[in-house]
């Protein structure tokens, strides 16, 4: 029906019609999918939730005399960065912690500061402390370096998150009689609360459930700036059970994303401390969906009440990998603030911010309308439901010492 090229021309002429993934729902209700597919060119999605597999790499420039941090040790504000590259390339992961953080020794640990906070501070333009030690070589003689760094002085500062934007997620509960501290937040004993983590009807991969337009190379809103889908994310699992509408009923697809950190904003990359669990980065992502045909609109108009998630016990089922889902609920139910499980009414809490997801979808819509953001053709698809690609558990094998 329409092509991405045609939509881009409309963007340039200022004639493009963009709606958010939430607005499209009402539109389809009123006018029907066929008409909406003709009238609307782009649907914008958004999500803003904790995404642990995030991080950033930097090239800090060469010191005088030169130092080879590669293979040495490096910290940013006391948080260790990965150095296994060339001389002055480093990578910091969101969950990295200072060596002297007490972790869970005092249970539940507070995890006040880690890699995610370093990334947020850099994005905010704050100076961070770099301390490095190296073994010294003939061409890189220096062994110690301690300096302040600012993002504007770095050669490259690139956010590269290997797993973001989960397509659906679990609802976490606690069946035990003790509180537990998880990446899904504090779970009170005896089904005291149920925490979920998805923007539901605004979430990128839930509005393109079969990855028809979102693929490698797709240009996106990332951390308040522009980024790209680099690959499918780790643990990408398109083959999970799906409802008739194509929406997975459990955590499924994921995205690896990349973008220039220098143009991102600290309010869309927020360092977070999960009590008793660790540090993580709350990442803002928005993906535009070009309306190429009526089917695009049918998927984009899927609503909270048609997106189901599994309720999982995080006291036994999840950590021990035993048992199965305690039941299924949809996002409309979760958003009422309570769900009923085993005859009990349970208050719900959300880790993903729906109001911020809405802001992201609105912001991306504004960029496109102003002609500042055009759409890209994916260079390659990410593996879909029928691809055979799926997530595997680890098969442990004993390590046997070889006889000499």
């Amino acid at each position, binding site marked *: 029906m329409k092509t991405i090229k045609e939509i881009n021309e409309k963007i340039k002429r200022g004639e493009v019609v963009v709606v958010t993934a939430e607005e499209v729902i009402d539109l389809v209700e009123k006018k029907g999918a066929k008409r909406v597919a003709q009238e609307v060119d782009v649907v914008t999605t958004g999500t*803003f939730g*904790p995404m642990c597999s995030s991080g950033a790499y930097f090239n800090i420039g060469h010191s005088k005399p030169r130092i080879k941090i590669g293979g040495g040790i490096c910290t940013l504000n006391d948080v260790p960065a990965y150095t296994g590259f060339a001389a002055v390339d480093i990578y910091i992961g969101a969950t990295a912690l200072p060596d002297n953080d007490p972790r869970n020794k005092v249970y539940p640990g507070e995890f006040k500061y880690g890699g995610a906070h370093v990334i947020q501070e850099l994005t905010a333009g704050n100076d961070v402390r770099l301390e490095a030690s190296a073994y010294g070589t003939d061409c890189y003689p220096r062994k110690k370096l301690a300096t302040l760094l600012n993002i504007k002085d770095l050669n490259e500062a690139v956010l590269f998150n290997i797993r973001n934007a989960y397509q659906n997620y679990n609802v976490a509960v606690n069946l035990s009689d003790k509180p537990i501290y998880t990446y899904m937040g504090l779970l009170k*004993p005896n089904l005291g*609360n149920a925490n979920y983590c998805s923007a539901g009807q605004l979430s990128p991969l839930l509005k393109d459930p079969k990855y028809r337009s979102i693929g490698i190379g797709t240009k996106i809103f990332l951390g308040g700036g522009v980024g790209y889908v680099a690959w499918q994310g780790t643990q990408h699992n398109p083959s999970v059970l799906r409802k008739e509408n194509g929406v997975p009923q459990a955590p499924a697809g994921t995205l690896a994303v990349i973008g220039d950190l220098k143009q991102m904003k600290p309010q869309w990359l927020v360092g977070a*401390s999960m009590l008793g669990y660790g540090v993580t980065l709350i990442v803002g992502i928005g993906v535009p969906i070009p309306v190429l045909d009526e089917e695009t609109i049918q998927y984009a108009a899927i609503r909270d009440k048609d997106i189901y998630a599994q309720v999982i016990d995080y006291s036994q089922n999840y950590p021990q990998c035993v048992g199965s889902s305690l039941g299924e609920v949809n996002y409309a139910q979760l958003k009422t603030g309570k769900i009923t499980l085993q005859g009990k009414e349970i208050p719900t*809490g959300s*880790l993903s*911010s729906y109001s911020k997801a809405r802001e992201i979808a609105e912001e991306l819509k504004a960029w496109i309308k102003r002609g500042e953001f055009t759409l890209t053709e994916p260079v390659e698809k990410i593996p879909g439901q029928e691809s055979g690609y799926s997530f595997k558990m680890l098969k442990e094998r004993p390590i046997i010492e070889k006889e000499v």
Partner: protein
Amino acid sequence: MVSKRIVLHFPTRLVDQPIVYKLVKEFDLQFNILKAFVTPQEEGLMVVELNGKRENFDKGIEYLQSCGVRIQSLAQDVIRNEDKCTECGVCVPICPTEALVVDPATRKVIFHNKKCIACELCVKICPPRAMEVHF
């Protein structure tokens, strides 16, 4: 006469003890229980208004402390740093007094300062640590 609002924290071992009853009987203090609940850490928490003679009040407090009850005055305040809050809502089911609730239309998390009893349960579980204790 004094009248004060305080928060009493009862460790698990004291939850079943008739401590409050004793206060009324032996120290002639009037109790108005504003809120009472058991926290996720299984600690008993009670927000009370205490009325009585000054000296009885002081003795009552002393007695409570000797039993192992931690006392927190309501003068201390929990406030939300609006710049830090991401409006996620993970604090909502944790707050015992519904001081933190989701607005169904905007999906933003509203903080009703007046309902807050400064129990601090939300402070450490807020991922960006937006809930701050001020003295």
